[in-house]
């Protein structure tokens, strides 16, 4: 079967690996581009958010390449993304495409549904559950390595002597990770990637600002949707961190235990689940403030309810904890100048604030 899936950041490398391990042909959709956006906007409801439109465009591009099945995720809680899979399927049907769609929901909530869907993917090539588990674990490991290597670049880029070098090496690491098939190869490639990154010429005398990135998962993960925010900030000399990674890299490698602590941190401000990553945006901001970050950038698709609710609450968090928060709403615009201007101004603000704090400390 020719199987495709949503393109988000670097995750396609792991998804492709899993699908191929299961004996199918993986159709990796092209990296989202202006064409994806135009196609997606043309065939989506006007009021849908940017992630819906980019996914729609990506599905259509994958179908052009012969995709027969689309695998995607559903979702729970009051965010409309939970219905996106169903709606995408209906729109594709209306356009006359025979492409089917498998929408995976949480295995803990709907175990039966989950197993049935996995079985549909395994059955054609007669793959047993045990074998599947092995493939799945390896793909998961690949995803973790991708996240770990990516996260490392955000710490290094602000120090790089030659602008663009980190990005160049990171892209090379991605091909290495993509090519690694067996488990021990993956570990080797991980090691090699980290060594390559450590080899970048750095100017450690710089004192970069630190900015936490929060917001809706798709626009946080996909650089095309957020004007390459983390790389842009890195090249402006800012260390960025985010807690949203597909493999929960942050959960294992940071000081807090993902979801539980985020909810705990958000509690004084927000007790309800508001869908999407709304509660994370609030909780993470509290964490970033406690960890001495200088500022937070919130990324949200235009009309995203969870992030709009979070934005309202973040005003209070920002005041209470003296951490500036800037929200960037993302929609169809592809002109980067507007975002660039806001980022530059935000970084100026943070630098001035730090300078004044240091003066006061003396």
């Amino acid at each position, binding site marked *: 079967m020719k199987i495709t899936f949503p393109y988000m950041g670097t995750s396609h490398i792991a998804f492709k690996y899993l699908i191929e391990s299961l004996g199918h042909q993986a159709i990796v959709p092209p990296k989202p581009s202006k064409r994806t956006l135009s196609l997606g906007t043309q065939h989506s409801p006007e009021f849908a958010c940017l992630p819906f439109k980019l996914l729609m465009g990506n599905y259509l591009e994958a179908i052009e390449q012969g995709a027969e099945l689309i695998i995607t995720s559903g979702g729970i809680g009051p965010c409309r993304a939970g219905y996106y899979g169903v709606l995408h399927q209906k729109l594709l049907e209306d356009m006359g495409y025979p492409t089917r769609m498998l929408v995976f929901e949480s295995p803990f909530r709907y175990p039966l549904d989950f197993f049935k869907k996995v079985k549909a993917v395994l059955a054609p090539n007669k793959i047993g559950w045990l074998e599947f588990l092995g493939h799945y674990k390896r793909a998961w490991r690949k995803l973790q390595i991708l996240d770990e290597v990516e996260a490392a670049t955000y710490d290094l880029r602000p120090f790089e002597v030659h*602008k663009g070098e980190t990005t160049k090496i990171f892209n090379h690491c991605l091909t290495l990770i993509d090519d690694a098939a067996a488990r021990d190869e993956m570990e080797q490639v991980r090691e090699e990637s980290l060594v390559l990154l450590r080899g970048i010429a750095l100017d450690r005398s710089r004192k970069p600002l630190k900015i936490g990135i929060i917001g809706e998962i798709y626009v946080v993960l996909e650089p*095309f949707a957020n004007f390459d925010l983390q790389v842009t900030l890195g090249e402006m000399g800012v260390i960025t961190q985010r807690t949203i990674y597909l493999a929960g890299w942050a959960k294992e490698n940071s000081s807090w235990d993902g979801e539980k602590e985020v909810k705990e941190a958000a509690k004084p401000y927000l007790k309800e689940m508001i869908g999407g990553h709304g509660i994370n945006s609030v909780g993470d901001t509290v964490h970033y403030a406690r960890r001495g970050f200088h500022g937070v950038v919130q990324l949200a698709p235009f009309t995203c309810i969870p992030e709009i609710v979070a934005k*309202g609450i973040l*005003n209070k968090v920002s005041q209470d904890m003296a951490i500036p928060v800037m929200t960037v709403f993302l929609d169809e615009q592809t002109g980067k100048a507007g975002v660039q201007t*806001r980022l*530059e*101004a*935000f970084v*100026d603000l943070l630098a*001035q604030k730090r300078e004044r704090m240091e003066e006061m400390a003396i």
Partner: protein
Amino acid sequence: MKGFLGIDVGSVSTNVVVLTENGEIAAHLYIRTRGQPIRAVQEGLRQIEAMLPADVEIAGVGTTGSARNLTAVLVGADTVKNEITAHAVAASFLVPEAKTILEIGGQDSKIILLRDGVVIDFAMNTVCAAGTGSFLDQQASRLNIPIEEFGDLALQASNSVRIAGRCSVFAESDMIHKQQLGHNLTEIIAGLCEALVRNYLNNVGKGKEILAPVVFQGGVAANVGIKEAFQKALGMEVIVPKYFSVMGAVGAALLAKDQVSKSGRTNFKGFAASDLAYKAGSFECKGCPNLCEVIEIYQDNQVIARWGDRCGKWENLAV
């Protein structure tokens, strides 16, 4: 006498200021960009040169505004700064006690919060026009009223008609409907001013602590109707500084002065830059799926700068 040149090239206007060493404004200029930033910059240089006393020598240049990078290449700038910072720098220099800056330009509107002269927070409109100057411009020309008289007309109204302020397109149709019903023009204009202010405070001003003294600047501050609507909505006095329309340029000049005091030299190409033949072109790079739109700037048919690509392939190319 040393002078510092500040150039702010925005969507609607191009502003040029020359600041003396003592921080006085020796000359200032506000002209329309008319979608041709290169021509506007060259025209601005020509005009400001003619306005300057003969003994002024330009010792530094700063650029800001949405065409700041382009302008920097044309004139040889010492600093290139975003307009939010430039506006804040100017306001804290000219109105040192300012705590809140309301800034409405041609295509953007922003709020800047200052405490003790330092920016502590700001917000800028993102996907909504939020009552910017271009819209007022359009409405003035639709109603056949010179934009300069727009605000005074609003003040003549004894009442205001409610206009929907969220979206400029629907604001326009709301205005047309009210006109067709027979409402008085001055009342509609007053209503529009209130709608824009309402939208501004609800959009960029949302959740921001607006403390006096409040400074209102940017091209739209020329509109006394909007100023009045702000005073009414905020219940406090709103100050429009003397050089409200060229504050970005003042900020750029101040930043240039600061930079040159550190570097000791200027990159200014001289006023002769207004006579060079500049040309801009663009192409779509097919190197990868990003399909970046790369801009090329030519001086006398030679490429002197390129930008717009994400990977740096063109930007870093020696030209």
